[in-house]
């Protein structure tokens, strides 16, 4: 596990690194329990400066765990999986990046924020969950068949 926490930018409002964790994907997908362990770990860090850390961590871990479970089911055992937490004054961003099977490229690329109702997208249930609990979720795909799942938490609003 690699842990870093350096600031990447001093621009006001810009996101600063809180934590970064990289794992060998083969190791990650060898043990389902790691999903829960990593989700709890990241959620605890994310909630650290919240007025009520325990409840905020519990709330965030629901979605973070789901993102990580999706990665567990979708990642191919090549290279590494990256977990990142970034923050600015308004929000905390959690992201998970991994490589998926290129046979699924069409499905992953079909993400359409405005009208995803097909249920075909690999992140369909994840998006439903994010919507239900009011957290914004984004998906970025790059040319190397690597996907980044990004959740932006506004903890102060979600957990009172």
């Amino acid at each position, binding site marked *: 596990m690699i842990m870093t926490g350096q600031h990447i930018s001093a621009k006001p409002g810009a996101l600063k690194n809180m934590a970064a964790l990289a794992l060998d994907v083969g190791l990650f997908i060898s043990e389902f329990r790691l999903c*829960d362990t990593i989700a709890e770990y990241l959620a605890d860090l994310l909630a650290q400066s919240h007025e009520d850390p*325990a409840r905020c961590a519990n709330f965030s871990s629901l979605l973070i*765990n789901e993102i990580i*479970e999706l990665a567990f089911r979708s990642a191919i055992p090549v290279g590494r999986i990256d977990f990142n937490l970034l923050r600015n004054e308004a929000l905390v961003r959690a992201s998970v990046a991994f490589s998926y099977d290129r046979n699924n490229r069409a499905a992953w690329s079909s993400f359409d924020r405005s009208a995803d109702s097909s249920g075909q997208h690999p992140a369909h249930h994840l998006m439903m*969950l994010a919507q*239900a*609990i009011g957290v914004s979720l984004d998906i970025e795909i790059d040319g190397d068949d690597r996907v980044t799942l990004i959740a932006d938490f506004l903890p102060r609003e979600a957990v009172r």
Partner: protein
Amino acid sequence: MSRQTSSFSAEFNEINQEIVLSGRMRPRSVQEIASVINMVRRSLAESGSTAYVNVKRLTHMNMTAFRCLAEVLKSACEQKPQRMIVVVTSSVIAWSAPLFQTLASTQPNLSVEIYDSAFYPGQTFVEDESFIPILRTQTKMTWRHEREILPRHGLRDGLTIADICCGIGDFATLIKRQFNPTRLVALDHSKKSLEYARRVAAEFGLNSIEYTYGDASQMLLADNQFDFVTCRHSLQIFDRPDVLLRELYRICKPGGRVYITNEKNSHCLGEPHSETIRWTYEQVAKLFSHFDMDVEMGPKSRRLLNDAGFDAIKVESFMVTNLDGDPQDFADVIEAWETVYAGQMAVRRGDTPDFIRRFRQGFKDHVLAALHPKGYAGWPIWAASGRKPY
């Protein structure tokens, strides 16, 4: 940190028509939870005109579990359109109501309620704002004793500490200043008390106390986290102290200690007027027991800790008296007790005006004993702790 991804329980209470799901439900596959899901399905099939699915203590869940449960609930709704299914959630778990609400919007006979009372029978009295001044003065009086007692139970500088059922947080503030813990979490289920606690801590410039809104019988805190866990004057107000102790045990580190204080109200005493005082406090014990609370718990601490699996148990008792500090503090506490016990609880029980008059008299005599230049008034407390075995 050791937390199991799936350690949950499911029970069906036929009398209340209630299915209770609790714990952590993060299975890898549906097969892992098949028995629970079948049990939910069977229970719903047997249920009458309204069925309750209580998820107040379901602290963690993944979509594998949720979708499976959602399917069962949906098909149960469709099979019996006349029957209502009520999903009961807690406001402690911030995702719970919004997530289950997604089901309610598709099923006319399914609704979601956020239901926080009835953790235990006397909750409405204890979470009332009028309790704040009582708690404040009580802690001021007990602290004189407890600051000496706590080190004998293993409290020292630099530990990780949790104060469960922290009330208005003044004990946590005192601990913070006296014992300088490396981490201090203080949990309660009264938002008003916590607001007050945060304000007081901020006034003292103590910003590292983690106040958290939670249910002591199913906490969101991980296992084996704390060197020292305190729960003061609170086990006695739960009808199931064993459930609470199990949680205190769970969050305590092996080798750490859980420290509890409880009263034996019928042993409150005073001179002069010892007889009327004694009668009134015997009635206090009966009144609380009417609401399923045991304010006679103090001397039972040893057994309770033992039954909960602790070892190296220590028990001591101390008497808070009118001579400890300002006698007016003692008198204020008793007057506050009178207001809540005679003014609210006895009225709720339906006691007669005659009874209430006599009941009040003992408190008045206790105040008199406290303030009398030759008087003596006492309130006995049991402090006990046990070690979680390695």
